[in-house]
């Protein structure tokens, strides 16, 4: 818990920039402004310019440029959210898309506006660095960090330390491939740690400090692999040294000849867990450990730049929430599905679903972003988290104020009660936006959302995770879906392959292909039959995933292909 009283100016929940950080960002914006000018003048060719724009998060997609903005460890403050709303309104088409890597994407950006947009972002301590390219990408984190009752260590301070370590790390700007790190501080994995290049789980060390479980070599894409457990006792002071050694071994031995075999997961499989561990240990033993040591003073100094919420709910907060729930069944349902227990008495974390029935998962209009910013100021210390499920979270809400918050969310069409249920679908942008796509993901999500719109029905079906990717890159995490949907291309037409039994959590598993891909117009019906089959065969409080694990694929296969 906080060991220093933060200056009031510090944002709650994330690191407060200092002048060095700000000067760096300002330089970076001007550098890119110059590069854009040279590109427009023609002195830089597209081939020369592309790596430069990607380093600043700017992609060329199907219809326009896309700008991916980093939200380090998924935490935003209200001022930043308002700026994103402003950018959406002024430079894009009035909305933004929150992604599974807790970032935000704008889909209709003009190249010529980008330097101004980056300057506006820099003014609120934001940027688009490390959102693309073969570098260490934005570190993702538990959306309930610092709030969850089940959390052992708040991982955001370490996420920030990793951000500072990896930003512009001279050795790691040209890795064999992109590199993604996730960190959690709870034994209940909400960050898909086992599906990342490196997954870290912080926990208390026997000596009272902090240590880490380390997973390596997980990933999705063309070769989905659950990461292996490398060690369970990495001391905090060796965090950077050991990660440095892990990434160095990858940088040295990772394949650069074949883009599909370049991720660390392939190296770990090739060397074997033991082989990889030995190489890392040898590197670790030979490096200048003093240089990379992370002393408690440094951790404390970084922690001191985080604002902390002043949590003091009235004694009757919980009782008042109980009364409000009894009086209002719709609110009660939302509390059941869209909240998470808080460590502090009288508080609760609220999940704002960006999955309205029939809507586009992860999209928020600029008006909604402004509303969320206002509500965060009013109810949650101005702090907002983006989840890898493409929703938003207000981490610290007083229980006696939750009903008022919910009413305000409902007025803004932000109160869908479906977190963790069938309507809470992850979908990548797919062929509607993405230049790499085989098929559209969003329309399938919309049709499923509409089909299962009823909150009662969703609660009856219970916890189930549907995840949709428009191609094998798996940005929509389909491999980790209880039901995964993968878009494939057959002679220019869209087909969808179903996988069952994936899970992103502590019980991570890769979904297995059920059978031949289905045409677009048969996919939603097939999933409805599959869900029916589950409802018939489940026992007790079994989740879909448990029923699948108990009974296997055959009955679901029958349900899907019987009439198809």
């Amino acid at each position, binding site marked *: 818990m906080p060991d220093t009283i933060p200056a009031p100016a510090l944002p709650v929940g994330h690191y407060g920039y200092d002048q060095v950080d700000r000067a760096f960002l300002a330089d970076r914006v001007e550098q890119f402004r110059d590069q854009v000018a040279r590109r427009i003048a023609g002195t830089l060719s597209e081939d020369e310019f592309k790596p430069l724009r990607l380093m600043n998060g700017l992609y060329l997609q199907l219809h326009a440029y896309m700008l991916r903005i980093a939200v380090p460890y998924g935490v935003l403050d209200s001022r930043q959210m308002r700026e994103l709303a402003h950018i959406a309104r002024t430079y894009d088409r009035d909305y933004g898309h929150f992604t599974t890597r807790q970032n935000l994407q704008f889909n209709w950006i003009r190249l010529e506006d980008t330097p101004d947009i980056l300057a506006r972002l820099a003014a609120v301590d934001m940027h688009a660095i490390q959102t693309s390219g073969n570098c260490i990408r934005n570190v993702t984190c538990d959306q309930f960090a610092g709030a969850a009752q089940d959390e052992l260590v708040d991982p955001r301070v370490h996420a920030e330390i990793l951000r500072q370590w990896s930003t512009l790390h001279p050795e790691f700007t040209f890795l064999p491939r992109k590199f993604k790190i996730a960190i959690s501080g709870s034994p209940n994995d909400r960050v898909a740690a086992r599906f990342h290049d490196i997954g870290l789980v912080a926990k208390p060390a026997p000596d009272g400090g902090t240590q880490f479980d380390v997973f390596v070599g997980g990933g999705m894409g063309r070769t989905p692999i659950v990461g292996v457990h490398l060690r369970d006792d990495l001391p905090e002071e060796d965090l950077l040294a050991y990660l440095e050694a892990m990434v160095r071994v990858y940088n040295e031995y990772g394949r650069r000849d074949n883009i599909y075999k370049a991720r660390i997961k392939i190296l770990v499989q090739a060397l074997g867990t033991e082989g990889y561990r030995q190489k890392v240990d040898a590197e670790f033993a030979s490096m200048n450990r003093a240089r990379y040591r992370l002393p408690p003073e440094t951790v404390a100094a970084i922690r001191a730049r985080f604002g902390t919420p002043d949590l003091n709910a009235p004694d009757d907060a919980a009782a008042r929430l109980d009364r409000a729930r009894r009086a209002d069944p719709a609110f009660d349902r939302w509390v059941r599905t869209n909240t998470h227990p808080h460590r502090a008495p009288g508080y609760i974390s609220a999940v704002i679903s960006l999955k309205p029935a029939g809507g*586009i998962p992860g999209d928020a209009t600029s008006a909604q972003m402004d509303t969320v910013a206002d509500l965060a100021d009013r109810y949650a210390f101005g702090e907002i988290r983006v989840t890898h499920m493409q929703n938003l979270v207000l981490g610290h809400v007083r229980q006696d104020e939750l009903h008022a918050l919910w009413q305000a969310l409902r007025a803004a069409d932000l109160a869908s009660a479906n977190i963790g249920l069938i309507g809470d679908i992850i979908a990548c942008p797919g062929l509607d936006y993405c230049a790499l796509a085989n098929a559209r993901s969003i329309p399938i999500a919309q049709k499923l959302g509409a089909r299962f719109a009823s909150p009662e029905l969703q609660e009856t079906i219970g916890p189930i995770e549907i995840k949709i990717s428009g191609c094998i890159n798996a940005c929509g995490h389909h491999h980790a879906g209880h039901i995964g949907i993968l878009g494939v291309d057959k002679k220019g037409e869209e087909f969808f392959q179903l996988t069952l039994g994936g899970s992103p959590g502590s019980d991570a598993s890769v979904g297995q292909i059920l059978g031949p891909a289905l045409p677009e117009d048969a996919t939603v019906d097939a999933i409805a039959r599959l869900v029916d089959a589950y409802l018939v065969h489940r026992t007790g409080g079994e989740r879909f995933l448990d029923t699948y694990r108990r009974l296997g694929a055959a009955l679901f296969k029958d349900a899907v292909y019987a009439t198809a």
Partner: protein
Amino acid sequence: MSDVRNNRREAGGSSVITANRLLDGRIVWQVAEGDWSPMIKDARIIPNAEIEAAIAQAAARQQADGLVGVYGVQIESDEATPTPVTVRERIRAFGPTVHPDFTPAAELEAHA
């Protein structure tokens, strides 16, 4: 941005040429040499036998024309408006299917 799927061309078919505008990234279709339109209905239809040469010519002047990623798109032979054979290029031509208000036609109307 091009895509390998666009390199599959039928011998007897026809294609149109497309690119993204450098400044705003938006999609355009070649009407004539040096003349591009956001509307695929304006596009010049080129027999596949001649398409490679036409693409090369357009690509050679893409910087001058303010374009990136010039490539050819095969179209259906039996449609009045040039209609790409693949879903991908149909979405490029007619806009994201999830935002009916963002189609090129709707946009032109909005600006008219």
